[in-house]
């Protein structure tokens, strides 16, 4: 049995800080440590639990120093490390950010924070597949989180749609807990790291390439998927009890955009190499910048953003 206890964090009052970090994933936590150590007063607010999407990763095998660790455990270590330095206010969603002269007023669910700088480490959320049946069967076989819902499909067959790293890891996790996954990938080749490809082959997880999923069908719950073999143009069906969708991510950048921060056509926040945005003392780090979607890169960007904030706020 898993006793990966997750600890809560406190923090409910409004206050004034040098830099407010929005988002408590690897980027935000790393930014928090660097900012505080540099001498800035900082705090992290997160609309959910600190940890970010990394928390959903069943297994992480490419974070320096760890040959293999559960995403949940890695994030717990990050969080405990950051809590040595600063306050992390969880389940405290930012509602509005108002420019107030040189400062910013950040209004959240539980308080108001006056800050000189903001680091957006808001991350990404799961992208939808946009096929018929996806919304209709949400919670009736369609899911976006294997660690949350995988257990309900033990002994059953499920489709994992999207064969990139997230989809591959999801399929491996499902197989490990006793589910029979089948991966369906749109591109004509493996889209995950070679390391995952190897595990998928070793564990006999079917990985279909060059297929386009067109619909999710069933009566009261998911019963099958309909897909197109892109080579032949042939329409096929596969009976499944569940569908896990891992077709990419979309950035959470609306708050930043409202503040005048530039984003690219996909909504990722534009940053320079020092993680500065076009708005003074507003920075971005981690997946919301659109780079790589890797924990180690997010952590590095968070550190960079904090150091830039230190330069702009303390050394000017």
């Amino acid at each position, binding site marked *: 049995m898993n006793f990966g206890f997750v600890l809560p964090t406190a923090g409910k009052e409004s206050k004034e800080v040098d830099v407010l970090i929005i988002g408590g994933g690897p980027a935000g936590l790393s930014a928090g440590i660097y900012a505080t150590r540099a001498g800035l007063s900082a705090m992290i607010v997160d609309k959910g639990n600190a940890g970010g999407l990394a928390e959903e990763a069943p297994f992480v095998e490419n974070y320096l120093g760890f040959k293999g660790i559960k995403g949940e455990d890695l994030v717990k270590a990050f969080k405990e490390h950051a809590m040595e330095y600063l306050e992390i206010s969880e389940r405290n969603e930012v509602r509005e950010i108002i420019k107030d002269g040189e400062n910013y007023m950040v209004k959240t669910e539980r308080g108001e924070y006056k800050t000189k700088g903001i680091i957006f480490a808001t991350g990404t959320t799961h992208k939808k597949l946009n096929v018929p049946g996806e919304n209709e069967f949400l919670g009736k076989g369609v899911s976006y989180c294997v660690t949350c819902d995988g257990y*309900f499909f033990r002994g059953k067959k499920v489709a994992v749609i999207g064969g990139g790293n997230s989809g591959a890891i999801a399929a491996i996790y499902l197989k490990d807990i006793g589910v029979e996954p089948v991966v369906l990938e749109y591109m004509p080749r493996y889209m995950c790291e070679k390391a995952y490809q190897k595990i998928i082959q070793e564990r006999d997880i079917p990985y279909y390439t060059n297929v386009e999923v067109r619909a999710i069908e069933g009566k009261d719950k998911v019963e099958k998927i309909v897909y197109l073999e892109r080579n032949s143009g042939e329409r096929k069906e596969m009976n499944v009890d569940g569908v896990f969708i891992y077709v990419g991510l979309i950035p959470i950048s609306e708050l930043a955009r409202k503040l005048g921060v530039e984003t690219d056509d996909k909504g990722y926040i534009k940053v320079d190499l020092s993680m500065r945005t076009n708005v003074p003392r507003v920075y971005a780090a981690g997946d919301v910048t659109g780079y790589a979607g890797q924990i180690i890169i997010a952590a590095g960007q968070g550190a960079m953003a904090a150091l830039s904030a230190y330069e702009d706020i303390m050394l000017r």
Partner: protein
Amino acid sequence: MAYIRDEDKKYLKGEFEKNLKDEVKLLVFTGDNCQYCGVASAIAAEIAELNSLIKFEEQRIDEDLARKYGLSHAPTVVITDGEKYQGRIRYVGLPSGYEFSSLVEDIMDVSKRSAEVSPEVLEKLMRIDKPVIIQVFVTPTCPYCPGAVRTAHRFAILNENITGEMVEAIEFPEWANKWNVMSVPHIVINEDIQFIGAYPDEQYIDYVLQAYEKMR
């Protein structure tokens, strides 16, 4: 064997020191042939050792207090002052993984005899003058679930007509199947209104009101 790591205990001790005000009872209802009852009691006992305001008691699921609180599954962990909150803030199944943080936060809120919601949500919450039970089905590996559990429990702390009950779906598969739980958090209100996902208080309370209106 200790279930909570020493460094976590140290942290929790500090948090309890800062945040506890009045006595909190941690009641673990156990029964026969119960796989996780021993663990549930052990964890509660370890927590109680961290602060003298936390009192751990083991109770039987087939005795009077359980009947009074309307409990039927073991283990059930109840966090209460023994009076106002009765058995309305509870976990059916082990509060492990992500739910451990919910349990700790509940202990702090119950000790303060209050919980935080916005004035708008509080106004809606206070309209409820008949018993409403909010059941939140979870898995311990779901990072989005504690939000939904804590909302139910905060509502229960603030309104005496509300019961907030976490149900560990993997431990009680038949119960989960009854409501076709396939994604968590899956919330069932008054065994009638259902929704899936971790919603903010504002939307959550509207579902609760919807269930309440249907009773009137």
